[in-house]
């Protein structure tokens, strides 16, 4: 290096380049993390195979995989957008990564956009993998209309937004260790009580009606309406997810601590 190397030439990169660069780093970090892959890939795949092949839960009329596949897709979104993101961001906060990024040219909106891009890429990989496994297990989704496809995509996107806001709320307010424990616990509870593998009708009395208001229930119910029953819309479920998104985002924006 010659003299003059450090001669100042400051400037921020264009926003799209910053977001792409940061999304790439987030994505590599996610894919490198063994525990995260266990949560986002191994567990949903195992649950799909196990509960489709073995008659553990009465899933009602029709093939078990037709009931399970939409629920497992909802679980995949939950695992990446909520659990994985909460844990990852919680430790970023703990290691001072967020603090250091706060002094870089990447604005907070860009950081959020990059995290969302990384989550969406992982979800795309999950959906492809789980759909292939489900089809191999004999899944026959309802004949999809254009509006059905649009509704399914909208459900997945709004579910991602709702879970992301809740995951960031947790990561930005609790200690990293508490986030790690809490996010896994929530994952487990929602797996059981969120209509993912156990139909909500199996719960006694009014409990099922309350559980329907959980974001993962709304997502799995909505996907099931479209993919199992061939519905062209799922407005009630989209509404539930929209409310969770608004509440979660407002709370995260208000309470998130960067260091």
């Amino acid at each position, binding site marked *: 290096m010659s003299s003059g190397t450090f*001669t100042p*030439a400051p400037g921020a990169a264009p926003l799209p380049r910053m977001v792409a660069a940061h999304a790439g*780093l987030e994505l590599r970090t996610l894919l490198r*993390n063994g525990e995260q892959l266990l949560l986002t890939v191994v567990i949903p795949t195992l649950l799909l195979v196990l509960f489709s092949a073995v008659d553990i839960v009465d899933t009602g009329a029709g093939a078990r995989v037709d009931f399970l596949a939409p629920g497992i897709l909802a679980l995949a979104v939950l695992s990446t957008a909520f659990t994985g993101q909460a844990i990852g961001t919680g430790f970023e906060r703990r*290691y001072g990564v967020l603090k250091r990024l706060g002094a*870089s040219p990447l604005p907070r909106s860009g950081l959020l956009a990059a995290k969302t891009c990384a989550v969406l890429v992982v979800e795309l990989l999950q959906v492809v993998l789980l759909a292939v496994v489900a089809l191999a297990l004999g899944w026959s989704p309802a004949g999809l209309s254009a509006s059905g496809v649009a509704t399914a995509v909208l459900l997945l996107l709004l579910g991602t937004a709702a879970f992301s806001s809740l995951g960031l709320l947790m990561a930005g307010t609790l200690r990293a260790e508490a986030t790690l424990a809490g996010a896994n616990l929530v994952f487990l509870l929602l797996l059981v009580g969120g209509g993912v593998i156990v139909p909500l009708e199996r719960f006694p009395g009014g409990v099922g009606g309350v559980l329907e208001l959980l974001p993962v229930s709304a997502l799995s119910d909505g996907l099931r309406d479209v993919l199992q029953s061939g519905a062209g819309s799922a407005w009630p479920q989209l509404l539930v997810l929209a409310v969770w998104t608004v509440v979660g985002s407002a709370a995260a924006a208000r309470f998130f601590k960067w260091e």
Partner: protein
Amino acid sequence: MSLLRLHRMQSSAAPEAAVDVAGLVKRYAGKTAVDGLDLKVARGSVTAFLGPNGAGKTTTIETCEGYRAPDAGRVRVLGLDPRQDAAALRPRVGVMLQSGGVYPTARAEESLRHMASLHANPLDVGELVALLGLDTCGRTPYRRLSGGQQQRLALALALVGRPELVFLDEPTAGLDPQARRATWDLVRRLRTDGVTVVLTTHAMDEAEELADRVSIVDDGRVIAEGTPEELCRGGAENTLRFAGRPGLDLESLLKALPDGSAAVELSPGSYRLTGTVDPQLLATVTSWCAQNGVLADRIAVERRTLEDVFLELTGKELRP
């Protein structure tokens, strides 16, 4: 004449300081961390912020970096408000935090490329990595780097965007002597290339080696400020030691010396003079020795160090 033009004329008449802090106060939960601190850093200079742990160095630096809002006082960095003008300021300022701020699984070179990609005209990452001796561990995850390597990576992250101004919070803490020298060389190069450097340290020799100006901080205030020479020369007395035969007549020596000098025989044959030790005084002492047939050997003039200055000012040992 419009206000804008008036403003421009004023700023061209007096070049703005890179950092201008006046009367900064910052409290945490009732405890005052910074208590009316002033700091002015000229563009293109190296300024050391010297003081013990808990003196308020990091709080002041982090206020300049925009992490903290002042409770009172005024902070301007490159003429801008670090919080209100954060978006404009961030690309122009390089930051090295005490804690690395790198995800443990991120690889060294990957982190650097990532930071480079956030800037418009970054340094060549390969060259920077080689310059800092990180070329052998470019693919090593951050958590597996040695402490010194982590420090150097944090420094590289501060520099890669070619900033006008860098804040280095304890850049050599935990480095071995070679790595420390290498970092010092780098700081000197930054100055040569026109980068303004503000660094914190509790290493006196570091401040003396590197800094154009030193601000000594204690209990949230600047208690002394100046070039290292000014600070070491100022006020108090210097020392001259020599050895000769035991039992010299110091009364007669003192008559030859200016008022205010003092002499003592510390142990048989070992003498210490205190006073204004200048070339004239040294000449007086050696000629007195010649007149008295004394062969003075091991003559040593002791300059005050910044450490002495700090001890005098605070009466405290500097806690490392």
